[in-house]
């Protein structure tokens, strides 16, 4: 099949996303620098410096911090430095964690993918399967029940279900490990290695993966269903039937392709925001990903890490959305790219 690269469309998208990134950096500068330091007149040392560090005196620490972050410079110099640092990923050194900030973030980032990405894939499978099931049975009781449950999942607080699940199946029945640390050590207390490590990881992640998938499939299921129903009633389906195309083909080739495009598109967007919503599952199951990093930074008022982690999350969203812009024309031939 011939496919021409839609250059204009792509260039336009790239420019749009870059503008967005710059706006976000400015926005962050406003809330991380301007508001605490210039509006609330807060001493930046309050959130950059631990109370004691390697026996240095407090004033030496503060001076060092001022030098490192350029806090003694005029504000526009700080601004330019900030933008530069963000774009080059120079996040500096966290005295509180005693580690470079970029290292802390890099450690947290992949942890999410173990659970969140498989659950996203699983929920897409649920969404498409159940959505098509309902679309084909539109108006019948089985459709109504199926749709009702999908709607119900929109509103179930995820943290609530996770707690109940953890309580009953984790603590009371002991069916699965209740936190990742427990999952990755052997009964004797030694850390697992090799296959046993992977097996432990799988055993630990399978429950949250399934729960998260069940909590997340609803919106896309409803999308699949509504487009499926529309497709079932469309004139091209009538035409296909008249052409003698077998019903199986009509449903599984034509209706399905038309119905899943919006769900797939939506999955892409959910993928972009998947880490952003991971705080609860990480907190409850005790694994240390980006969500937990943000959460703990918030609890300890660690503004430095908070701002940088937030920037990385936004950047991740922008990059994923940009990749999606490139993929959409391949999935849906109707995406306008002129």
């Amino acid at each position, binding site marked *: 099949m011939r496919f021409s690269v839609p250059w204009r469309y792509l260039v336009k998208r790239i420019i749009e996303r870059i503008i967005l990134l710059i706006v976000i950096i400015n926005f962050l500068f406003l809330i991380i620098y301007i508001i605490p330091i210039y509006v*609330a007149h807060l001493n930046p040392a309050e959130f950059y410096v631990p109370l004691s560090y390697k026996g240095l005196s407090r004033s030496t620490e503060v001076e060092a911090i001022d030098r490192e972050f350029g806090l003694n410079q005029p504000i526009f110099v700080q601004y330019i430095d900030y933008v530069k640092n963000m774009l080059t990923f120079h996040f500096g050194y966290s005295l509180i964690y005693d580690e470079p900030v970029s290292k802390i973030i890099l450690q947290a980032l992949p942890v999410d993918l173990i659970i969140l990405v498989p659950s996203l894939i699983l929920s897409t499978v649920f969404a498409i399967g159940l959505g098509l099931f309902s679309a084909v049975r539109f108006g019948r009781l089985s459709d109504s029940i199926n749709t009702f449950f999908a*709607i119900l999942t929109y509103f179930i*607080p995820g943290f*609530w279900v996770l707690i109940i699940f953890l309580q009953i199946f984790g603590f009371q029945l002991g069916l699965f490990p209740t936190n990742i640390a427990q999952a990755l050590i052997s009964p004797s207390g030694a850390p697992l290695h090799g296959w046993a490590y992977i097996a432990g990881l799988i055993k630990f992640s399978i429950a949250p993966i399934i729960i998260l998938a069940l909590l997340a499939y609803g919106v896309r299921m409803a999308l699949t269903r509504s487009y499926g129903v529309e497709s079932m009633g469309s004139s091209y389906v009538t035409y296909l039937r008249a052409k003698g195309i077998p019903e199986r083909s009509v449903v599984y080739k034509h209706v399905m392709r038309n119905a899943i495009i919006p769900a797939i598109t939506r999955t892409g967007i959910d993928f972009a925001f998947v880490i*952003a919503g991971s705080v609860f599952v990480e907190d409850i199951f005790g694994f240390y990903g980006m969500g937990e990093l943000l959460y703990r930074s*918030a609890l300890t008022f660690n503004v430095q890490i908070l701002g940088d982690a937030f920037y990385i999350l936004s950047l991740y969203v922008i990059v994923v959305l940009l990749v999606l812009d490139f993929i959409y024309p391949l999935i849906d031939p109707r995406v306008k790219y002129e």
Partner: protein
Amino acid sequence: MNRLVNQLLHRKAFLISLVILLFFIFIASAANYLTPYKDPYTITSEQHLAAPYSIPIWARIFPQYSKYPPNTNMDLKSPLILGNGSESFNGTAYTVELKPSEYENLSFPLSWNYQYPYSFSISFIAIPHGQAAQINVLLKQQNKTYFLESFVPSADQILYTYPTCPLSMGKTNSITISSESLSSSNSPYVSTLPGNERYIASAILPQLIFKPGKYSVIISIENIGTSPLKVYIYQPKFSAVGRAYGILGTDNNGASVFAEFVLGARFDLEIAAIATLIIVGIGLIFGLVAGYVGGKVDLFLNALTDFFLTIPGLPLLITLETIFVVSGLILKIGIVPLLIAIIGGLSWMGTMKIIRSVTLSVRSRTFVEASKALGSGPFRIIRKHVLPNILGVVFAQIAYDVPVVILTESGLDFLGLGITKFPTWGNMLGYASAYTSPANGFVWWWVLPPGFAIIFLSVALYFIGSTLQDVLSPYKVRGE
């Protein structure tokens, strides 16, 4: 109008949802009448109403909970009198007259049908007249007797080998024997317990003593002086702090979960209502302006909306809140208005997009242009044509945004980043999960109600919203 009401009332899902919504509105608005408590989180007198983690009263229909005691408070009556003195009862007081070395036991029957209570206490007022008296309080079950406490005048205490408590002769002694205050220093029984049990006696006494069965509370009075003794005993009472309490049991502080639930309902609904007004207000204005005016205004508003849609919401919420706390600005604003402002200010984008798209679709319909051709100005067109046609969507958005606010706010409260000092459904869940542990078991009466309330309320609002949209929208609007 009647036609609309008629259509609405013919939809079962709508009716059921309406009943659920009205139920919650009722609970919220009648909160002050449903519970005497104001804030079980900070007012300590509203805590310890029953044992921590008390089950709801009605849960005793389940076999595993059937013997859990409720709070008990009873006057002790019709004592069995044993001894060699004389006694009389005038309706309020027992008068015991004893010659030297005589004694008299008032043995009040107590029938206990439950498992052990959280704590118990026996109280009465004793006014001894004479030289010296010893008053012993015992609890007897069949052939086992627990010598709880012994009262003698201070001067006589050295005569005894077991712990005794002071008794003032010729004065009013308010005597209270509470399982929580019994220790090896004041209770003969406790002092006989093995060492390890002795130290935690106040916690385990009820368990050691109470099983279902017949007990007697014995107030034993003995004349240990040399002249005649006359003792008045008033208002003998037995009370127990139960392990089954109220409609929804208690939390880790022994505070009423029902009170928290009801107060939380009111608070959540109030916050949700205000934040939803902000969300729909911003969404409606931006959406209408962007959709109706179009052109560069639309471009700008749409870009602004896309910006807010692109930055990850929950992390932004957390970051913003922290900044406000760190910078101390929160002290000037207060956490509740700040939460409402942040949630409202970060949740309007979806509503704006939908209002914009329906406004665009109404605006593109010929009747709008026809109205313009008749000489109508933009405000008239918006008022007479656009708004009435998107009314269903606006109502639906109101209904859909309330759950969004409640869920977001509950999430923040759950994490401890939102409201923590006053009951909300969210922080109830947060505390419930923090305090449920393998040891405490699964405190379902604490964990389940807020969660189900959130779900029921949200689903009800969803159906109300979608029905309103259906009925009020003459043209098909795709809800996504």
